[in-house]
């Protein structure tokens, strides 16, 4: 049984607006084990990024997180920033969506890498730079010593994302959160990047959280997945199970709306309707206005996330068979 590295319990994130509150994430629960790759999937605004930003203490000023994110016996949620600095960058690291803007344009790559080791490992500057160059080599950057002296604008997008990966892995963290790490990259680079993620996290025993809306990415690398809708997890389970036998209509819709090269269709099949506004979630199940399988109960009561065996969970009252025909 592999070790559990992160246990998230009842994590909720709210944002205070002028005269109201928006619940971006509600009652999120999951565990991460060593070397595991968990994909968190959902449309824009489903709360998938905010949940993990809250664990990293990176919410916007008006955001507030409640619940628990246990790293060993330390709860990262609600911890003050200076205490949190002992863990973030060291035990839990994050890679962001846009490598073009996520590196500081006015600092050399080596400075941005070395400071992590100086802070968390207590290395002196020279030793930290040498270790940083080694890590750059490890993430597949040619001429790492030369690139370390470069400024970010002198590198391509793929190179910059490799630098971000190197930066996040410097301290061999227990957990790596990657928020849409391949979205801003060319398709050819995306595949390389995913391979890199997979091999490095295996080498270091790092658990990887892959936040994405790209099911192709999930299929390629993830072990388990969590589908989010309207701030809540609606289905969880092994990737293969969810892909071959989705049990939540939303998961089915997501899979169905992904184009396949084998079935060349005249038009794509998107999920009907729009993602809900978090300020005005529908009564009952949040997905009910877009669901082809809804019945009366869905309009009144919100389905809780319940285990359905084989390590799977879903939040849906519908127990019949889900068919593509009905979605389309």
């Amino acid at each position, binding site marked *: 049984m592999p070790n559990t590295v992160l246990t998230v319990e009842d994590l909720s994130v709210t944002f205070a607006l002028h005269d109201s509150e928006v619940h971006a994430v509600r009652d999120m629960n999951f565990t991460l084990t060593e070397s595991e790759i968990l994909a968190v999937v959902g449309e824009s605004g489903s709360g998938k990024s905010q949940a993990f930003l809250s664990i990293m203490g990176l919410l916007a000023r008006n955001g507030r997180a409640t619940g628990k994110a246990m790293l060993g016996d330390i709860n990262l949620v609600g911890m003050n920033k200076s205490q949190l600095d002992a863990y973030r960058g060291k035990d839990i690291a994050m890679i962001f969506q846009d490598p073009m803007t996520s590196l500081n344009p006015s600092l050399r790559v080596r400075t941005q890498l070395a400071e992590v080791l100086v*802070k968390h490992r207590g290395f002196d500057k020279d030793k930290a730079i040498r270790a940083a160059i080694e890590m750059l080599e490890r993430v597949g950057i040619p001429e790492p010593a030369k690139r370390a002296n470069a400024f970010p604008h002198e590198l391509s997008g793929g190179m910059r994302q490799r630098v971000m990966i190197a930066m996040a892995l410097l301290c061999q963290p227990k957990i790596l959160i990657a928020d849409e790490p391949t979205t801003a990259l060319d398709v050819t680079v995306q595949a390389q990047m995913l391979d890199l993620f997979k091999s490095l996290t295996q080498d270091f025993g790092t658990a990887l959280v892959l936040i994405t809306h790209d099911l192709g990415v999930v299929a390629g690398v993830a072990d388990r997945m969590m589908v989010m809708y309207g701030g809540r997890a609606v289905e969880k389970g092994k990737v293969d199970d969810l892909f071959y036998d989705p049990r939540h209509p939303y998961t089915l819709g997501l899979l169905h709306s992904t184009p396949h090269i084998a079935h060349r269709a005249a038009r794509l099949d998107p999920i009907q309707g729009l993602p809900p506004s978090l300020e005005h979630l529908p009564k009952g199940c949040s997905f009910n206005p877009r669901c082809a399988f809804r019945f009366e109960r869905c309009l009144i009561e919100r389905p809780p996330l319940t285990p359905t065996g084989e390590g799977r969970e879903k939040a849906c009252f519908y127990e019949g068979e889900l068919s593509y025909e009905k979605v389309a």
Partner: protein
Amino acid sequence: MLGYALRRVLSAIPIALIAVTICFFILRLAPGGPFDGERALPPLVLANLRAHYNLDQPLVVQYFIYIWRLLHGDLGPSMVIEGFSVSRLIAIGFPFTLTLALTAFVIATFVGLVAGMIAAVNQNKWPDYVLVLVVMIGVIIPNFLMAALLQLWFGVYLRWFPAGGWVNGSWMHLVLPVTVLAWPHAARISRLMRGSMIEVLGTNYVRTARSKGIGQRLVLARHAIKPALIPVVSYLGPGLSYLLTGSLAVEQIFGLPGIGKYFITAALNRDYGIVLGTTILYMFIILALNLIVDLVYAWLDPKVRYR
């Protein structure tokens, strides 16, 4: 970068020449002359004086005489203060003016940067509101009124500092004039710094820095300040020139022995030599400042490359 600096210096020459030309003719177009007084001079004396200073020549000839002398480093004589060359008056007054303006500049820039940063980090909390108030006072009240208010309050009522005058080497005499000069400058710098700092603190790369757990102090000092300084630095050049020119009026109000005393009387008396000489001096200072600002950019923003 050295080549760039050299080219900038060379390109400043035509700019300087154009500026001198414009100043020369504008000054001459203004009515009156250096020898108009309450009591009209006898025609023969006036003619002699005009001939002595070449004022009887056509304007264009005078212009070329002036440029010719200027190229030899001669700013000409004062036409009102007898026996003094413009260069000598500048040598007497300018060091004091420069000291006053630089003191105000250094203090104001430092205070402005720190205040702007504090306000940005505490955005929409009380330190931010206090700053807005202090800045507003500095920007709204013109320096001559501010000078009078400070003289009255701290010089006359409280008697903390002398209300005016100058005793050699006494910093007490500099407190009020430096405050008057520095306040609006600090106010503008702090506004600029606050704005750009808030912008930088919201960028993705500052979020990345925070995610590394390097601590708030390093996030600010290493990651945020340098990029936030870029818009502020572009204001520093013009800012110092405001201080140098503003200092002329402030010196006059506080009775300080800078170049302001000569410049203001000279402007009123149409003392062409002094007005032009001082203007040219300031022009060179401003050109130099702009060059320095451009070079500092390269350090702040590595994307700037000088060719």
